[in-house]
């Protein structure tokens, strides 16, 4: 074994033992595992643990209460229930094992080949899958029973075939997922055979989901088998759990206790399998349970909590100290993230900045510097694990952080509006553009349907969309990215805002479309006298559009001032580095001219 091979092996082994340890930390996993193992063990050792013949009748001792000789009592014709439960499990568990084997062998083979090689094999397997999914399983099993007679293993074999598609689909989709991963490509390029790639790389990826699915299949198989036995269509020899339930049910008025033991063991077995499978899934998917407890606080809660408790930072910073020409003052805002992996981490530290009325402030910095999170805290759109721990966000004399959720929602009209980064992801795919544009107008601004429609069309014209009426009828997936961004700008304008926060508004767009959208933003800003907070990592864009610049690094403002001061006379080392890194080898940027045919953008 090579050195790297050894290391890889060790890492894998360690990861496996970690998975096991994490699994055992799940409060339900250990009891489920113990229950399952205990039942399997009891059933396997039935001959030793329950020496009484499960079929020996003793009419004198019928329906006996539990005793030393009969730990669970006897049934209606005096047979020992303990012995029948243990021996009855053997056929049930073996039948389930058969189902599992067939389903896994067929599902895995078909899934690996269809997923890896694709093409007609995939199509054929998919058709076979939809065929079996449309069949009412029980009817087919009944037909099988009529065909093969009381041959339990034949029936369970057919059930294995019927349930194999669930394994197949899982394996196929997992293989599809990893097939084009780089490491599989690398393995292929380095000349490994398909069989080796399949067994070594791809099988590793499907192992965990396969185990989970297997537990599910086993649980279902036990249930189906018991159901067949209950109907009297299973095996005709010896006791089974389903058969015992049937016998108990026929005497439910006389001796309901007969139902108890088979129902209990059947319930425990199927439930423990599924609980274990679920716990395993939680572990593999790394969903730490502890994290949920901290999730209660929403963004709104955190806003409220900063109301009284946290003192505003910065001496003497009261609303009155905000200069008259400042529309939005961010004053000493700090922000933490609570993630299960890292615990509580502060990512924005005591940040202050000011957006002047009718001016554009550029918030620049590398990705990960906290720009977007700062923007979201101004907008009141922070995701759940984030929390504002201090500071104030003062818009026109009102501290937005002290508003109740309801007041906050109302304040969005004529307040701060948001232009997102990824236009396509920010439109609801289920509704037309018209629906989405008129909804805030009607709901938040109380317009009538006709009024809202007219306003929305005007807004679309304002963002240089050529045919507003046709656009209103389209769904988001029917328009281009540039068009979608114009729609989102129109939606932001529909709130009649004083301040626009645009978070990298052109990053996700084609280069050819970018300049058009930027020019549109500048035109709107000038025409409407809007204040804009432009979040960007593109210093060229910032230089073109902004009046003021604030440079953010690792959650701290390192420098702020007018665009001339910051870009031509940078005082901070970091700003100089940033500027140098751009102008070193980048081509000069063309001037921003809004194209005449803006509607096509």
């Amino acid at each position, binding site marked *: 074994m090579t050195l790297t091979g050894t290391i890889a092996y060790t890492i894998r082994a360690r990861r496996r033992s970690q998975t096991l340890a994490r699994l055992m930390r799940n409060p339900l996993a250990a009891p489920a595992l113990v229950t399952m193992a205990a039942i399997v063990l009891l059933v396997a050792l039935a001959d030793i643990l329950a020496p009484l013949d499960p079929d020996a009748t003793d009419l004198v001792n019928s329906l006996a209460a539990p005793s030393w000789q009969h730990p669970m009592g006897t049934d209606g014709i005096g047979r020992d229930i303990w012995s029948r439960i243990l021996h009855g499990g053997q056929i049930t568990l073996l039948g389930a094992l058969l189902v599992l084997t067939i389903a896994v062998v067929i599902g895995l083979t078909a899934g690996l080949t269809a997923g890896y090689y694709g093409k007609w094999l995939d199509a054929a397997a998919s058709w076979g899958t939809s*065929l079996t999914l*449309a069949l009412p399983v029980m009817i087919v099993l009944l037909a099988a029973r009529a065909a093969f007679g009381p041959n339990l293993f034949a029936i369970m074999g057919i059930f294995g075939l019927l349930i194999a598609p669930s394994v197949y689909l899982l394996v196929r989709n997992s293989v599809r997922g990893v097939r084009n991963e780089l490491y599989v490509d690398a393995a292929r390029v380095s000349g490994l055979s398909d069989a080796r790639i399949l067994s070594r790389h791809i099988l590793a990826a499907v192992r965990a989901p396969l185990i989970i699915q297997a537990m599910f299949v086993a649980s279902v198989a036990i249930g189906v088998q*018991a159901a067949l036995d209950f109907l009297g269509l299973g095996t005709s020899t010896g006791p089974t759990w389903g058969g015992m339930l049937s016998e108990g049910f026929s005497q439910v008025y006389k001796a309901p206790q007969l139902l108890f033991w088979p129902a209990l063991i059947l*319930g425990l077995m199927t439930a423990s399998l599924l609980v274990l499978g679920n716990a395993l899934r939680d572990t593999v998917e790394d969903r730490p349970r502890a994290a*949920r407890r901290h999730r209660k606080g929403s963004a709104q809660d955190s806003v409220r909590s900063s109301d009284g408790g946290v003192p505003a930072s910065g001496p003497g910073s009261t609303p009155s100290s905000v200069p008259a020409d400042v529309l939005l003052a961010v004053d000493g805002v700090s922000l933490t993230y609570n993630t299960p992996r890292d615990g509580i981490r502060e990512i924005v530290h005591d940040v202050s900045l000011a957006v002047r009325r009718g001016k554009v402030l550029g918030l620049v910095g590398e990705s990960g510097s906290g720009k977007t999170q700062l923007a979201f805290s101004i907008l009141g759109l922070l995701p759940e694990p984030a929390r504002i721990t201090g500071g104030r966000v003062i818009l026109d004399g009102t501290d937005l952080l002290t508003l109740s959720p309801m007041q906050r929602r109302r304040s969005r*009209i004529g307040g701060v509006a948001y232009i997102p980064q990824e236009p396509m992801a920010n439109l609801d*795919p289920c509704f037309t553009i018209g629906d989405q544009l008129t909804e805030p107008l009607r709901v938040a601004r109380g317009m009538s349907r006709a009024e809202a429609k007219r306003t929305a069309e005007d807004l679309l014209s304002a963002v240089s969309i050529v045919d507003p009426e046709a656009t209103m009828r389209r769904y988001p997936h029917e328009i281009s990215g540039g068009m979608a961004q114009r729609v989102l700008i129109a939606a932001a304008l529909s709130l009649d805002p004083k301040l626009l926060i645009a978070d990298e508004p052109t990053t996700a767009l084609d280069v050819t479309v970018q300049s058009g959208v930027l020019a549109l933003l500048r035109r709107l800003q000038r025409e409407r006298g809007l204040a804009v907070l432009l979040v960007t990592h593109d210093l060229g864009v910032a230089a073109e559009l902004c009046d003021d610049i604030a440079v953010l690094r690792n959650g701290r403002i390192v420098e702020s001032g007018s665009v001339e001061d910051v870009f031509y006379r940078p005082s901070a080392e970091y700003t100089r580095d940033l500027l140098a890194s751009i102008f070193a080898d980048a081509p000069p940027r063309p001037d921003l001219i809004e194209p005449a045919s803006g509607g096509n953008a």
Partner: protein
Amino acid sequence: MVTFIIRRLISGVLLLGAATASVFFFMHASGTNVARAVLGTNASLEQVEAKAAELGLDRPLIVQYVDWLTGVLTGDMGDSYTKSQSVSDLVLSRASVTLSLVIVTVLVTTVIAVVVGMVSARNRGWIDQVLQGGAVLGTALPGFWIALVLVTIFAVNLKWFPATGYVAFAKDPAGWAMSLALPVAALAVAGVSGVAMQVRSAVIELGQREFVRTLVSHGLPPRRILFRHILRNAASPALVIVSLQFVGMLSGAVVVEQIFSMPGLGRLAVSSTTTSDIPVVMGIVTFMVTTVIIVNLVVDLLAAWLNPKVRLR
């Protein structure tokens, strides 16, 4: 759209052909003597042979299947071997029981699952934990197991509901509801668990989507965002699970009808398979597969209507 429906109908017909053919050959090729099974063990050899000739069982299998198929295409599904009734009369008279059971179950399942899924997604904490645990159990425990427990508690001990029987809706709506309550509850548990967890994860996942954040920024009330936007987006994947559950419920109905002595297709299937009444079994298979195909088609159309981005292929 029209091409989609036509393509789905063609594949549905193929599916139906494949399903009926496999069940047909299956039941004949098994080595059990059908005529013997029909007459019972006491019949003499001559009687069995005469019966086989009478039922046409002495002809080649493929001829018998084609014969059956042409019959079906002309609306004649043959007569029962054991009951003096035509298969279509027999199946249709039983279908109303099974369909009311399954359709009511689907409706109940959907409503409860959406509520449970949303509550679970929106109250992360102990409520969510309890509901999730309940869903795992609901998926794990076999439907007939739940039915037995329900009967023992609510019918035998508490006597709140009738333990057995089915009352037609036209005869007595209240009695109909009472007779369906326990069977529906038993059948719905698994479906509710599956669909609720699908709704839950969809609501959680959608709640973190960017478009929801943007809707918040537009000043829309959280309730409106949840009910109008998130639920609409969650509906398509949930519907697919519902349609899968529907197939499972048809299977579950077989056992549940047996437990509650309901005169539905499931009980008919059990009795006709044990007596090798092949025409009746074929009639049931045809009916059930057709129902499944129609339901799947309707669900796909509904999903596409709810989310225009879902392409109909």
